[in-house]
């Protein structure tokens, strides 16, 4: 099963459940409040997922490590390497 199919499957299940409750497709005579809560649910879900995404990405950008130490270490090693290689007879 490809990811696309997995997603289509998941979305269909959610849409089916939502339609069942919102439009009372099975004539379960659900209380009116159920339908009122269910009806805008997809929008709420989308908005909260959007917020979650923005917050997560924002947090991860803000906490993305800057490896200054690693860059410094590398600079030192580059110098060391160049000297050593020259001694070993490398012509650059």
């Amino acid at each position, binding site marked *: 099963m490809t990811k696309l199919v997995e997603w289509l499957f998941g979305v269909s299940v959610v849409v089916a459940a939502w339609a069942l409750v919102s439009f009372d497709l099975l004539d379960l005579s659900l209380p009116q409040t159920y339908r009122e809560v269910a009806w805008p649910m997809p929008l709420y879900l989308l908005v909260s997922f959007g917020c979650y995404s923005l917050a997560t990405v924002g947090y991860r950008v803000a906490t993305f*490590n800057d490896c200054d130490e690693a860059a410094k270490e590398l600079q030192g*090693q580059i110098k060391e390497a160049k000297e050593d290689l020259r001694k070993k007879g*490398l012509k*650059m």
Partner: protein
Amino acid sequence: MASRKTLHPNRDSEDKYSILLPTYNERENLPLIVWLLVKYFGESGYNYEVIIIDDGSPDGTLEVAEQLQKIYGEDKILLRPRAKKLGLGTAYIHGIKHATGNFVIIMDADLSHHPKFIPEFIEKQKEGDYDLVSGTRYKGNGGVYGWDLRRKLISRGANFLTQVLLRPGASDLTGSFRLYKKEVLESLVERCVSKGYVFQMEMIVRARQLNYTIGEVPISFVDRVYGESKLGGNEIVSFVKGLITLFATT
């Protein structure tokens, strides 16, 4: 004897690590990366070979590679050049054919991947007998150097989107600093059809699909100091295309 053991802690291991270094115009970086590889493999004592796959670089990378081979020996430095620039994916395929180790390490030759992490990769691999170990910029002490806010945002955003859509079970999909069991790499390379940038992503997504086990080691990624970037402008376009393709086919 005892002191000799501590000097070369892993010398008796039967494992051998083949490092594939694809190069295109890396005259300045190649000696440095090779020097670092020799240093860290010397210290850790693991058995290794470096396979340099140069695609006819006009800047004379191959000549430098030949000099390095003289300095460090033909058993350690292997040259497997190709006549013209045929791309990264096929460079790996070409390199694997000549690899004699039971493990293969893939890394860029532009010094953005530091050999100091290789002993950590190897320990990680042994720890869980992982089929592949991937370096990750997105976890633990991992990180980047020389990236501005815009690049960080694109990188994190693209990574988040990929995680949501593909749930690949690895945190760094586009990184190309990895250790593979040789037969695992062979079977993956055979299956992967993507080019360039997306190739690395496809490799790890297919690995998960085939139920290979994946270990991760945080790495610091330092942007190339010398030379020019070969993967320019339409990186984002090819990323999105690749993501959609993988979404629909894996």
